[in-house]
């Protein structure tokens, strides 16, 4: 690991100021992605700014059919939250299946979505539930937030502060986990929301995406058989040592049907 300076700000304003002061600074939340990256010398930040002391980034509130989760909340706390389990059980289930207990005790919602790993779980929840990302300067809808592989709409130095998830009528998430890392080879969130049915897929493509053909079919008939004929083109999907794009395309259909069957 290359050397860096370390800051431990107490407010988002201090964190933003510290970011500007460094010539190539990086925030750190749980460190479950950043530290492995630093260990491999894939990044060389001048400053590492620790967000763990910022009270504004913590906590879970449920009010007015909205579950709001601070960016600094770790996956284990989302999974264990009685409020989340009651309001959006699918979200608690998703958080409970990220990585392993040690990763869940440190890794955070904000870090996960800021990183936008194509195989991360949370992007499916944000897009599937139609969530809104509140940053240090604006609000961004989930679909505008995730812009590409490891790419988001965040500007340099802009912080994710919290994410607001509207409570759906029903929703479920399942993934086909990579057996070693538990990252999603394919993960699908299906939700019936006030805006209609949403189907969001992670793991399969460069970044999370919706499947309009499945959404339309489910709006007509909310059953697994309604989407059994929907073909997912493999052309733009990921191919790696874990799965070919054709295999992933097939898995999207299989997992989506299982998810629908679980809440139909």
């Amino acid at each position: 690991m290359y050397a860096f300076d370390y800051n431990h700000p107490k407010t988002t304003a201090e964190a933003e100021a510290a970011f500007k002061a460094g010539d190539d600074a990086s925030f750190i939340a749980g460190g479950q992605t950043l530290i492995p990256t630093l260990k491999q010398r894939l990044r060389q930040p001048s400053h590492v700014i620790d967000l763990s002391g910022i009270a504004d980034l913590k906590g879970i509130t449920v009010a007015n059919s909205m579950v709001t989760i601070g960016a600094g909340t770790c996956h284990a706390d989302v999974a264990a939250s009685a409020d989340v389990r009651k309001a959006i059980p699918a979200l608690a289930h998703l958080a409970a299946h990220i990585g392993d207990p040690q990763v869940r005790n440190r890794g955070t919602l904000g870090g996960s979505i800021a990183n936008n790993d194509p195989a991360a779980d949370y992007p499916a929840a944000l897009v599937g539930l139609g969530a809104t990302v509140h940053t240090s300067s604006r609000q961004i809808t989930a679909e505008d937030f995730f812009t590409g592989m490891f790419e988001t709409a965040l500007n340099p130095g802009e912080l994710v502060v919290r994410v607001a998830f509207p409570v759906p009528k029903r929703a479920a998430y399942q993934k086909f986990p990579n057996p070693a890392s538990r990252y999603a080879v394919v993960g699908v969130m299906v939700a019936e929301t006030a805006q209609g049915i949403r189907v969001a897929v992670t793991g399969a493509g460069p970044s999370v995406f919706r499947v309009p053909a499945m959404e339309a079919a489910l709006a007509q008939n909310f059953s697994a058989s309604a989407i059994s004929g929907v073909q997912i083109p493999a052309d733009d999907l990921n191919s790696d040592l874990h799965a070919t794009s054709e295999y992933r395309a097939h898995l999207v259909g299989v997992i989506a049907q299982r998810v629908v069957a679980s809440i139909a």
Partner: protein
Amino acid sequence: MVEITVTVNGAPQKAGVEPRTLLVEFLREQLRLTGTHVGCDTSQCGACTVHINGRSVKACTTLAVQADGQNVTTIEGVAAKDGTLHPMQAAFKEYHGLQCGFCTPGMVMSALALVERNRAATLTEDVIRAELEGNLCRCTGYQGIVRSVAAGAKAMGATVGKVE
């Protein structure tokens, strides 16, 4: 150098560390607590598992500065002062929870955390297996480890389901 104070196994430790120092390096190289192992470079094996404020974490994927002001427990802090093994350690010995022993400190730390996390419900074999997801063992095939954790949990007063 950054000054940090970390309470390790109950005793406050004041030290200067480089920000890039990993918690596991701080524990092993500065405090000479070599019970916490490093088994991989990819944050996957869990041999480095310690507790921060009672929660299991991978010390190879935590900076020492991130532990500033926190309570860290390592495998050296688990047995009684007179050396009597903790019931979980004793169970690993009794039920063949180890062969080479490299993964064992991390397994025991994860086991202790999973027993506490699941106090409210019956600890089933499935839960034990799922919650050891972050700990790899290259020797035992896990059967002995699962039996050890179940026996250790029982000795710690937890309600434990049937384990094959």
